[in-house]
């Protein structure tokens, strides 16, 4: 019986992973865009990205575009796999294979 991924299951982290997983592999989203898509605050989003990064589910790249710092978050292969398993588990729950 598959288990839900505790790291991904938190609502904001689920949204972050869903957004990143919707992109082609090795394509990331800028922090500001991710913030807009998820509706999270700076602090909250930063904290949850850190949790995902510690688990190896996302990579965080910081660079300067002109004089502005730009943070880009990308789902790793490990993160994509974990997300796919998490979604499969959710579907199994709905199908009644798990209680």
């Amino acid at each position, binding site marked *: 019986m598959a288990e*839900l991924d505790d790291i991904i*299951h938190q*609502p904001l982290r*689920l*949204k972050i992973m*869903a*957004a990143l*997983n*919707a*992109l*082609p592999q090795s394509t990331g*989203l800028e922090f500001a*865009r991710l913030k807009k*898509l*998820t509706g999270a605050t700076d602090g909250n989003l930063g904290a949850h990205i850190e949790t995902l990064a510690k688990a190896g589910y996302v990579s965080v790249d910081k660079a300067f575009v002109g004089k502005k710092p730009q943070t880009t978050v990308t789902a790793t292969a490990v993160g994509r796999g974990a997300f796919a398993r998490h*979604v499969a588990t*959710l*579907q199994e*729950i*709905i199908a*009644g294979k*798990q*209680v």
Partner: protein
Amino acid sequence: MIDSKEASAALADIDDIVRRVKQSQLYDLASIAAVWWGVLVFAGNVVTWLWPVYAVYAWVAVDVMGVGGLVALRLFNPPHHPHGAAFGIRLLLVFVLFFAFGYLCTNVIGHFGPRQLGAFWPLYFMLFYALAGLWFGYAFVAIGLGISALTLIGFFYIGEAFPLWMAFVNGGGLIIGGLWMRRS
């Protein structure tokens, strides 16, 4: 463990965010295309207003550069689509049919003068914008209907300066609309 109701809610959240990411990516590309066409259309209308005798050449150049820009945009942003090549050919056919049908209406069925042509092409273009918006996002509908309304106002109430009006309404409208789409 969660129940099926919570699982359904989680999957609905995922679907919603995926839809928004895809729309955001589409808006990014569409905004570049809108700004590009806006600049060209602005220039085309200014040439039409200042040197009407060169208008026909200006509009051929606008159309060629406009479609060329879209092709370049597509080459730099290849679609992540299982039938990418077929989709590209369909896109090219869309433009061929678009211009062929427009030409048929304006030059074969009707014999439009410069003023009618100046109103027809933006209205025709914006019709597709508005229709696309029914599938791809309200920004297209808003831009399409907004520019169409201003085009009709200009057609009926603006005199000799109609091309200049269209430079700002159509060209400027696409530029502002494209920038707004980028922020949506």
